[in-house]
């Protein structure tokens, strides 16, 4: 295959990626868009096997190793993607992004070892960039995975002098980058990789749980840029196009996500260093809360005219999507006006809750976005908050020290009655106390969301 034909097919794959991103931006075409992207990626991968540079012959060297490695990747990747619970999908995306960054860094290292002293300075600079950003994306994504999987604390991790350690690591990383460019050696490159991995960890540790999705999106954009840089080193137009597309669209997406959460990107990344210490939550623990029985909840609902359901991640964890739909259907059959108030970041990622409710066949016309539903709370008799906390926490408006300060919230406080379905008094993902729990018009129903909802449904049926 000539270089011209090879490049032309690469360009076709690049166009597929553009169409894929375009398609993914509208619900109607999203699935088709993703499939177009997959076709583009397949074309791009297959065509490499049929092209060799001048003076070299086909098949590719190490063909057995290459095909074997692809098979291993498929065997690991496909079942992971198929079997993952929808609730755990954000951490899987983080992990996939991380391994992509790792792959880009490894490609850059191999090419560097291969070129040896013949590498030109621009190529070395691109290599250094790929190694730094790829390693940061890899280790940073692992930390976001651990946070989302709750294998480590979801709170911002800040240690004394943290910002100096981070600044020091960054300086050392950049210093060793310069060293690699000047000295051209294997050891400096490995030191650079190690420092970059460390920086990735330190970079993500101070980010609070609720902001993790923004960081995943940012690291995703980073990985895209490393792919573009690899494209430069390997002289592949396709990699430059694909990587740049992801880098640019990922940056915009990151900004949009941050806006949906009412956060500035800067605040997300460095907020933990500037925020004042949180007010002591200890004093609040002794205050009385009003807890009710499923029957109390059913009675309250039976006499309501308008009910807004606010689902949160707790609902998904309890796998209660179907039960909540049953409750909603029952209320509608009793002539009660029912809507779901969906916070843009309900769940663990923007749009995550919509996916989870769609899985339970909740009709779209009942899902109301935050802007739609907020003005209606004043006319709402009962707001049922199921396994959500941070997205209704008034601290986002009233307490400048809180990590979620500035995030738009669902204003359930304006409803006549509030019911919280909670497992315990434990604070939400962002780790802050919710004043609303102590409000006199709030009733708490403790227990597993699914079990509680089932009891409420049967109590309501008997009324």
């Amino acid at each position, binding site marked *: 295959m000539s270089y011209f034909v090879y490049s032309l097919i690469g360009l076709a794959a690049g166009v597929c990626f553009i169409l894929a991103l375009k398609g993914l931006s509208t619900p109607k075409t999203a699935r088709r868009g993703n499939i177009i992207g997959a076709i583009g990626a397949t074309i791009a991968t297959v065509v490499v096997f049929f092209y060799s540079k001048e003076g070299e012959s086909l098949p590719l060297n190490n063909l057995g190793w290459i095909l074997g490695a692809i098979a291993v990747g498929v065997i690991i990747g496909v079942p992971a993607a198929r079997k993952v619970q929808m609730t755990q999908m954000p951490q899987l995306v983080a992990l996939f*992004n991380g391994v992509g960054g790792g792959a880009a860094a490894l490609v850059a290292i*191999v090419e560097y070892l291969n070129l040896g002293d013949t590498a030109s300075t621009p190529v070395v600079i691109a290599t250094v960039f790929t190694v730094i950003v790829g390693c940061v994306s890899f280790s940073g994504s692992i930390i976001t995975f651990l946070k989302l999987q709750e294998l480590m604390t979801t709170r911002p991790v800040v240690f004394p002098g943290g910002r100096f350690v981070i600044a020091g690591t960054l300086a050392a990383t950049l210093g060793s980058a310069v060293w690699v460019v000047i000295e051209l050696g294997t050891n400096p490159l490995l030191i650079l990789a190690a420092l970059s991995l460390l920086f990735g960890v330190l970079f993500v540790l101070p980010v609070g749980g609720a902001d993790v999705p923004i960081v995943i999106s940012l690291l995703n954009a980073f990985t895209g840029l490393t792919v573009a840089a690899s494209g430069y080193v390997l002289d592949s137009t396709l990699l430059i196009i694909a990587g740049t597309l992801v880098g640019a669209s990922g940056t915009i997406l990151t900004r949009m996500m941050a806006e949906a959460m009412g956060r500035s990107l800067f605040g997300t990344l460095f907020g933990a260093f500037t925020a004042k210490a949180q007010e002591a939550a200890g004093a609040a623990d002794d205050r009385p809360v009003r807890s009710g029985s499923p029957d109390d909840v059913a009675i309250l609902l039976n006499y309501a005219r308008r009910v807004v359901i606010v689902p949160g991640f707790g609902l998904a964890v309890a796998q209660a999507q179907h039960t909540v739909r049953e409750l909603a259907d029952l209320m509608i059959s009793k002539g009660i006006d029912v809507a779901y108030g969906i916070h843009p970041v309900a769940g663990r990622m923007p749009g995550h809750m919509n996916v989870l409710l769609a899985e339970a066949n909740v009709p779209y016309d009942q899902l109301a976005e935050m802007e739609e539903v907020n003005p209606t709370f004043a006319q709402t008799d009962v707001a049922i908050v199921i396994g959500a906390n941070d997205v209704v926490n008034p601290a986002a408006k009233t307490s400048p020290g809180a990590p979620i300060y500035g995030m738009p919230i669902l204003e359930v406080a304006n409803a006549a009655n509030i019911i919280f379905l909670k497992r315990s008094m434990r604070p939400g993902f962002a780790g802050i106390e919710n004043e609303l729990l102590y409000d006199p018009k709030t009733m708490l129903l403790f227990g597993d969301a699914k079990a509680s909802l089932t009891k409420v449904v049967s109590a309501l049926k008997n009324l």
Partner: protein
Amino acid sequence: MEPIAIISIFVLAVFVGFEVVSKVSSTLHTPLMSGANAIHGVILVGAIIVADHSKTNLELGLSVAAIILATINMVGGFVVTDRMLEMFKPKKGGETK
């Protein structure tokens, strides 16, 4: 490739990337991120190229690792995005926004 050609491709791709996702409802933020994530799995192409011209065992070992990671990224990414989007398919009586 000519440096100016590379810079042109890069700059134009930046603008295309900005344009295509300029208006996305928050509902689709997660699938879009996941889809973009799968696209950068195309680094697999780079991993195969370096595996082809690996001369030492170290180089081959590292490129095999890169191929495995890139394949997981690409294949897993597209599959998980498709699973997410499957939920958005229009249903009887309901209508997709």
